[in-house]
C-alpha cells in the first residue's frame, strides 16, 4: 500500500469507528457503484457515519491529507453521482437517519440526511402533513441525496422540486467547517444560500441536517386514466389541460412499451393503448369535484378512447405503483437499458416524442417512454442487449442524440437525475465557456482542492 494511503487509513482509524470503518474490498463491494451500474470504482475506505462529528472529523482528515471524498446516501443516483472516486473516501450517511423534529405550526420538519424520503411523510402523518417531493425511488432514496440532486417526482408539477421544500440546512464544508444556511422560515433574508446548495451534486460539501417544508395532506385525491391512440394525442391533451387553467398535481404519460413492462411486473391493470395519460387532482373536496368535472370534459374532447377515474386509495396506489416501478420494469423487456432524463418545453413534447420515435426506428433500438408530461420531463428508456457487440455504444449514442434533441428544442440535459459522471461532457451544450468558467470558480471558492465529489458535474471535457 502507498504511504499516503496508509497514512489516511491510519488517521481514520484514530476516529475509533470500529466496524464502521471499512477498508477490505469485500466489505466495500456494495459501495463501488450507484444505480448507474455501468460505472464502478473502488474507494480507499468507507466511513459509516453515525454523528455529525463523525462527518466533520472524516472530512477534516480528507482535507488535511488532500484525499477526495464522496458523500453517499442510498446510492440510487442514476448519473454516477455517488460513484466513489478512485483512492478516495466514501462517507456513508444512511445511519444518520433520525427525524429530529416536526413542527406542525410552522409546517416544517428537521431531519438528518440519511432519512429516507418516505419516512418524512410517515413522521408528519399524525399532524395531517406530508413531504411533497416524491421521486419514484422515494421508499429507498435519502433526503441528503435528494438535496444534492434537487430530485423531483410525479407530483412536482404543482409542488415543485426538492429545493422548493428545503429552507434550512447545516453543512460540513469541504475543509470540515460547519455552517448553517437558511432557517426554519420559508422567507430567506440575504442571498438564497440554501437554494444554491440544493442541486450542487455534493460539490459544496455534506449536508448533515436539513429543514424541510411540509404540506397538508389533501382531503381528496382523484386519479384519472385516459387512453390515446398516439403519444402525440396524449401530449396534446396535456397542453389542453394546461391551457384550460387547470393545475393538476401530476400529469404522467406512458407509451405502449412502458405499459407492457408495467403489466409484466407489477400488473397495475392499465387499459391498453398506444399511450396512457395519468392525471391526478388533489385538494379540498369542493375543489377536486369542480376540477374533476372540467377535467373529464377536457379528456373527452381531447379524443381519449377510454377514460376512468378513481379516488379509491388501493386502486390509486396500484396506478402509481405501476408508474413508479416503470424503470425497473423494463428489465422484463430487455437484458439492459439506459434511463435517460431530458427536458423539453412542454409545448414541444409532441415534436420531441415524434423525433425520438424516428431516431429509435432509424437506429433499430427500442425505446420505451414514460415521463412527467406536465413538466416536459422525458425519461426515454433505451433497451439493448449488452452481450451483442457494439450494442452498448449504439445505445449510448442514441441516448446522447436524445439529449442534443432536448437542448435544440430549448430544453435541458437533465430534469432531475443530475449531471454526475454521466453527462459531464454534455453540459457545454447548454452553457457557454463563461458560464462554465463561473461554475468552476464558484466550486473552487468553496473547495479549492476539489475534494468534494471530484470529477462529478464539472470537468473540462467537451463534446462538439
Amino acid at each position: 500500500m502507498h504511504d499516503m494511503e496508509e497514512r489516511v487509513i491510519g488517521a481514520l482509524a484514530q476516529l475509533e469507528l470500529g466496524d464502521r470503518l471499512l477498508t477490505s474490498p469485500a466489505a466495500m463491494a456494495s459501495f463501488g457503484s450507484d444505480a448507474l451500474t455501468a460505472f464502478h470504482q473502488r474507494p480507499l475506505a468507507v466511513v459509516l457515519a453515525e454523528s455529525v462529528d463523525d462527518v466533520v472529523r472524516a472530512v477534516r482528515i480528507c482535507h488535511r491529507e488532500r484525499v477526495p471524498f464522496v458523500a453517499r446516501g442510498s446510492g440510487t443516483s442514476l448519473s454516477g453521482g455517488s460513484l466513489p472516486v478512485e483512492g478516495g473516501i466514501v462517507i456513508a450517511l444512511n445511519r444518520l437517519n433520525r427525524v429530529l423534529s416536526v413542527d406542525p405550526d410552522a409546517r416544517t420538519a428537521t431531519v438528518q440526511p440519511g432519512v429516507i424520503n418516505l419516512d418524512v411523510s410517515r413522521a408528519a402523518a399524525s399532524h395531517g402533513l406530508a413531504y411533497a417531493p416524491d421521486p419514484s425511488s422515494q421508499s429507498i432514496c435519502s433526503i441528503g441525496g435528494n438535496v444534492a440532486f434537487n430530485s423531483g417526482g410525479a407530483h412536482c408539477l404543482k409542488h415543485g422540486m426538492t429545493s422548493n421544500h428545503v429552507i434550512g440546512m447545516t453543512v460540513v464544508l469541504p475543509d470540515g467547517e460547519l455552517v448553517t444556511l437558511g432557517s426554519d422560515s420559508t422567507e430567506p433574508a440575504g442571498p438564497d444560500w440554501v437554494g444554491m446548495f440544493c442541486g450542487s451534486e455534493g460539490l459544496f460539501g455534506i449536508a448533515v441536517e436539513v429543514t424541510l417544508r411540509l404540506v397538508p395532506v389533501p382531503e381528496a385525491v382523484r386519479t384519472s386514466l385516459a387512453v390515446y391512440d398516439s403519444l402525440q394525442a396524449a401530449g396534446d391533451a396535456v397542453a389542453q389541460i394546461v391551457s384550460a387553467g387547470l393545475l393538476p398535481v401530476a400529469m404522467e404519460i406512458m407509451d405502449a412499451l412502458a405499459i407492457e413492462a408495467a403489466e409484466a411486473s407489477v400488473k397495475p391493470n392499465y387499459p391498453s393503448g398506444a399511450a396512457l395519460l395519468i392525471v391526478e387532482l388533489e385538494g379540498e373536496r369542493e375543489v377536486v369535484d369542480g376540477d374533476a368535472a372540467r377535467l373529464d370534459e377536457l379528456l373527452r374532447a381531447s379524443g381519449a378512447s377510454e377514460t376512468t377515474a378513481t379516488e379509491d386509495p388501493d386502486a390509486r396506489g396500484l396506478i402509481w405503483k405501476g408508474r413508479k416501478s416503470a424503470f425497473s420494469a423494463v428489465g422484463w423487456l430487455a437484458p439492459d437499458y439506459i434511463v435517460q432524463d431530458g427536458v423539453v418545453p412542454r409545448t414541444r413534447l409532441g415534436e420531441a416524442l415524434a423525433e425520438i420515435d424516428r431516431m429509435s426506428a432509424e437506429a433499430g433500438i427500442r425505446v420505451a417512454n414514460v415521463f412527467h408530461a406536465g413538466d416536459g420531463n422525458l425519461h426515454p428508456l433505451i433497451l439493448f442487449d449488452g452481450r451483442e457487440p457494439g450494442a452498448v455504444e449504439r445505445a449510448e449514442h442514441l441516448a446522447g442524440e436524445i439529449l442534443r434533441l432536448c437542448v435544440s428544442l430549448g430544453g435541458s440535459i437533465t430534469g432531475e437525475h443530475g449531471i454526475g459522471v454521466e453527462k459531464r461532457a454534455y453540459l457545454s451544450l447548454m452553457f457557454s465557456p463563461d458560464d462554465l468558467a463561473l461554475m468552476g470558480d464558484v466550486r473552487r471558492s468553496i473547495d479549492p482542492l476539489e475534494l468534494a465529489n471530484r470529477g462529478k458535474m464539472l470537468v473540462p471535457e467537451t463534446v462538439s
Partner: protein
Amino acid sequence: MIDTTDHVEAIAEAIRVGPRVLPVAGGTKPGLSRASGPDVVALDVSGLRGIIEYDPAELTLTALAGTPVAEVAQALADHDQYLPFDPPLAAAGATLGGVVAAATSGANALRHGGVRDFVIGVRFVDGTGRLVSGGGKIVKNAAGFDLPKLMVGSLGGLGVMVQLSFKVFPRPRATTTLAFDLPSREAQLETMARLNRGPVQVDALDLDRSGVLVRLGGDPDALAARARRLCEGVEADVQHFEGAADAAVWRDAAELSWVPAGSRVVRTGLTLRDVPGLDAALAPFAATVRYSLAANLAWIAWPGTRDLADLDAALRSLGRTGVVLTGTGTNAATDARTGGSRLIGAPTGGSFGSRIRSALDPHARFLES
C-alpha cells in the same frame, strides 16, 4: 427580440472601472437602492425593459430584468395567468430584477411559494464584467448550479441581472377575503396555525392590527362553500370582503399603505413561534408590524425617529435577519451605528456565503450588504 448588447456592454464597463456599483431600477425600495458613500454609484438598469418570451401554453415567461412587474402582470392577466409569488409595490413601479434582488414575496405567495420557487433562469453580469447564464426557460432543470436562486435576495451584491425567466401559473378565477376578529394574540396565533394546516387551502394568511386576514381563491362556484367551512372552525366575528373590497385589502398590503409615514420598512423571515417575542421586542419603540405568509414573514414599520441599531439588536436576539427596504430615517447619526447596512440582525451564509461572493465578485465591485 430586443437587442441588449449596448446595455450589457455599458454595465460590464461600469463594473470593470470606476467606483463600485449598485444596480437600481424602479426605486420602490429606496433602502436598497440608495448608493451610500462616495465610492459607490447607482447603475440605472431600468432601460432593460420588455417581455422577451411568453407563451401562455408553456406557463413560463422571460423578460428583461428592468421590466416593471405591472407590465408583466398585465400581460399574464390577459391570459388568466399570474406571478404566484405576488410581488409587492407593483403599482409603485417595482421591477422584476428588484423583486428578485430583494426577495420580496407578497401575501398571496402562501398558496404556491415565493420568488425563489418561481425564478427558473437568469442572465447577469458578474463582478468581473462577465455575462453569464444559469438555469433556463423550462420549468424543470437540474443542470449546473442553481444561479437563479442565488440571485434571490442578493440585493444587487452578486451580479447585475439582465434577464430573468419565471414559472407562472393560472390565476384563481375568483377570490374572497375573510377577516376574523379574535379576542387575544394567543387566539390569533392558534387560529393562524390551524388554518395553515388545511384542509381548506388558503391563498393568503396575514395578521395585522385588525386581526387575522384570510384570502381564498379558486373556482367561483365553490368559493362560498369553502368560506363557510373555513369559518366553521373559528369562533370569532367575521367580516367578508368581496369584489373590489377583497382586491383593496390585498392591494393595501402589497403597496404597504398601512405603513405610518416616516417609517422605515424592514422585512424579516421568522416563524409563528417568534411572534410573541418580536411583539415584545418592538413594543417599547412603538413600531407597527404586519405578519404575513402564516407568520413566516414580518413587515416591520420602524419609526424614522428610532435608532435602527435597536431593531438590529432585537432581531439578533431572535436569531433573525432583516432587510431594510425603505426609508432613510430622520436620525442619520444613529443609522450610522448599523453602518448604513441593508441587512440587519443575525448574519447569514457564514463562510459559505463569503466564499461564493469571492467567486462572483472577486474585486468587491458590488456592495455586500
